[in-house]
């Protein structure tokens, strides 16, 4: 393949390293040494991830978590422009400002649909296993180039701006990554078997409605714990869906699977463990309460979960 995902690891690694250097040289950051160390360590994961021994990478992750957990990652000063300056340039540039912002989704879309099978000399243009990510990476680079050209800003200014955003996200940047690690560890430690065992041994599923409710709520609850519906589905479908719903109540497997996965998504809406969807946006939108997005989603997720139970109950043997 011509464009590999590895290239974008190097791009991100270089970006994180620049952020570390800028943090080190920012006297307005009260903890500039530990902040710089944090971002430098994260850069190592991207620049040298393939050469690190697993134990070293694990130790690196623990050190990063300790720095972030004890408040070692702080904000600096970013030379932001005043609201008046921003309003002036917004008026001057107008809708042109939207072009770079839309380049990212449009490039991702074109790359992951039209260009995914394109080959040159027998080589895939885009890494076939990671077409979406590679397209997104290309789109981001095109967008930076276009934005620099439109605003006459330098690429260095673009780096300073990404540092401003990354610093405001702070530890929220690495939380989804570390939660994904915890998810894999849960799987390795046999969490799925333990949960399925508890659910099936202590709940009587002789009543169809109870069985359906256990299945849907189990999906949601296990997703709340794991932060990921894809981790919950095999466990609950294997523990309750297939043996009880299909085996005893002759459910249509397609209905069972479809509504089961959607019940898992109700769980995703309700858990801080799905940090990518819930904690990161709260940080991105500069909300004082990091759980604000989860809290507001509960009132959407619970009614949908109830409807799922009803739908599955009535559509079970369609």
């Amino acid at each position, binding site marked *: 393949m011509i464009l590999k995902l590895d290239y974008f690891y190097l791009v991100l690694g270089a970006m994180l390293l620049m952020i570390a250097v800028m943090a080190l040289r920012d006297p307005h950051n009260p903890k500039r040494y530990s902040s710089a160390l944090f971002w430098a360590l994260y850069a190592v994961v991207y620049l040298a991830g393939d050469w690190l021994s*697993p134990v070293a990478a694990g130790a690196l992750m623990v050190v990063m978590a300790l720095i972030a957990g004890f408040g070692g990652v702080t904000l600096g000063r970013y030379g932001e422009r005043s609201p008046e300056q921003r309003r002036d340039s*917004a008026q001057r540039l107008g809708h042109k400002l939207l072009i770079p912002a839309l*380049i990212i989704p449009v490039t991702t879309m074109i790359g992951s649909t039209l260009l995914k099978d394109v080959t040159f000399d027998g080589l895939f243009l885009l890494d076939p296993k990671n077409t979406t990510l590679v397209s997104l990476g290309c789109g981001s680079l095109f967008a930076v180039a276009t*934005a620099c050209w439109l605003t006459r800003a330098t690429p260095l200014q673009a780096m300073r701006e*990404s540092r401003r955003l990354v610093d405001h996200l702070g530890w929220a940047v690495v939380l989804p990554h570390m939660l994904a690690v915890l998810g894999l560890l849960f799987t390795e430690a046999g969490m799925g078997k333990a949960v399925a065992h508890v659910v099936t041994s202590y709940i009587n599923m002789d009543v169809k409605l109870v069985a359906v409710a256990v299945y849907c709520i189990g999906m949601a609850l296990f997703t709340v714990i794991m932060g990921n519906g894809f981790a919950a589905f095999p466990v609950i479908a294997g523990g309750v869906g297939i043996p009880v719903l299909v085996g005893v109540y002759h459910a249509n497997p397609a209905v069972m699977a*479809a509504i089961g*996965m959607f019940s898992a998504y109700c769980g995703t809406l309700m858990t801080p463990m799905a940090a990518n969807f819930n904690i990161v946006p709260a940080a991105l939108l*500069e909300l004082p309460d990091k759980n604000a997005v989860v809290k507001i989603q509960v009132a959407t997720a619970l009614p949908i979960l109830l409807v799922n139970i009803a739908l599955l109950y009535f559509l079970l043997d369609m």
Partner: protein
Amino acid sequence: MNHTVNLWPLLGVAVIVLGFALRAHPVLVVIAACAVTGFAASMDVVHLLGVLGAAFVKTRNLPLILLLPLAAIGLLERYGLKEHAQASIARIKSATTGRLLIVYLAIREISAAFGLTSIGGHPNMVRPLIAPMAEGAAENRYPALTDALRHRIRAMSAATDNVGLFFGEDVFVAFGAIVLMQTILRGEGIEVDPLHMALWGIPTAVTAFIIHSWRLHRLDAHIAHAMMKGGQA
């Protein structure tokens, strides 16, 4: 009864629940849960660090979606992207926060159902465009919008992106979740047509749209009510 199942790893879950309940730092909670789960599964320190490190490197593709677009978005913000989004919505007199987000929910859910999940997203759509527009629409009517309402509107913008994405994408036949379900059911000896799974997702997808739209509609009423009570028109 099967006695070979090791229930100790469930302690890891207890650490998570306890940690979040005590409002401990989330990153520390995760590391503590890693340690407890690993030791409960009788791994020693070196083995555990190895498992964590291998997983850390393996999942490093995850933050790319968040971090790569930030340089462009940050630069555009410096040159007034948010201000432009707010000024644009101010020109549409009938726009309210709720109506705007309902339109976004529809676009997000329908495009995801056709497999176009990259339209939207928190770093490249919600932060620079959708949230400022939703806030701007409320500000047009109530110039003295309170911070509490601003935060509520932003959180709702993020929630709308999530709801649209989750309940749209599963209706798309070639989406990863459908492939995953098919693989798992096949492993259990059950053959299912992916098209059927996608179709049986539609009732929930429609329900999700109705429920969340209703909440967005209520948000307008909530904003109006809160601003009246505060004494500002």
